[in-house]
């Protein structure tokens, strides 16, 4: 795995197309978490794997241009606070922590079940950013090790 140059042209071309499909599937899993199997956790891992796929094919330099790593770091920390804020709004409006303070809506429709989709999206961002960040840091660590 040469990090600076990435893999062959065949892998790069296929990755260029397939990354978007994987990302779309990840977003679908997150947004439909309250309707179909899956949810924030599974969708977040799929998106992290899409980024990982890009990183394995193109190398670290190009990934750094494509994804804003600092933004990802901030999102990872912010989503933990957002989860708490949603819970505290529940205290203000309904009296209990993490209460479902939005009306539940119609069963089987996309905009239904109150705070559940919001929490799904927050968890998706958190898992995606966190897991990708671990791999990112591991790759930095590995390169320095090889240089020694």
């Amino acid at each position, binding site marked *: 795995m040469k990090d600076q140059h990435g893999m062959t042209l065949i892998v790069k071309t296929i990755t260029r197309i397939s990354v978007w499909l994987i990302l779309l599937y990840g977003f679908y899993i997150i947004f439909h978490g309250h309707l179909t199997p899956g949810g924030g956790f599974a969708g977040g*891992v799929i998106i992290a*794997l899409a980024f990982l796929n890009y990183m394995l094919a193109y190398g670290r330099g190009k990934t750094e241009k494509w994804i804003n790593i600092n933004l990802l770091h901030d999102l990872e920390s912010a989503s933990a606070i957002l989860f708490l804020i949603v819970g505290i709004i529940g205290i203000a409006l309904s009296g209990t922590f993490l209460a*479902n303070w939005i009306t539940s809506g119609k069963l089987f429709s996309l905009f239904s079940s*109150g705070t559940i989709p919001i929490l799904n999206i927050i968890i998706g961002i958190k898992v995606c950013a*966190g897991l990708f960040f671990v791999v990112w*840091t591991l790759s930095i660590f590995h390169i320095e090790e090889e*240089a020694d």
Partner: protein
Amino acid sequence: MVEIWLIFLLSIMIIASIVAIEVKNKLSAIITLGIVGLGTSLAFLFMQAPDLAIVQFLFEIFAIVILVRAFINPKKHQEEKSGMNKFLAVCTIIVLVLIAWQSLDLLKALPEFGNPKMETAQYYLDNGASETGSANLVTSIILDYRAYDTLGEVTVLFTAILGALAILRVKAGKSEEEEVSK
């Protein structure tokens, strides 16, 4: 029918884990470990838990990528021959057989497969959709009835990633400084 498939899967997983210990090549060992994880994912699918199956499957891929990344360097990880103490091995086997023999009575007291003794699960099945408005019952449990648990899970993930970053960043930062000084 499901039980037969599960026994089949479990035997494959046991064989794979034994092979993973015994095989010499590191890459083969990691791939056989992957068979164990995918077997778990299939077992969840047979027991009609697609949510768990998806997460297990994805994490297996993730774990294999990280394991290959970490252990593929032959210079850093060298094999050491382990001498087996025969007396200790016999003692371990005797203790394990004793524990298994004693726990046979306990296994009979377990509730039947698919018939839990708790009433909470039945309450969720009956009222989950009408109370939360979520069609996927698993999500309605983890993000509404048991949202507090999910908050704990998020905290655990946050802390684990923070710890990993803290350890790895110190080493990466050190060598960057050395490069600058050179």
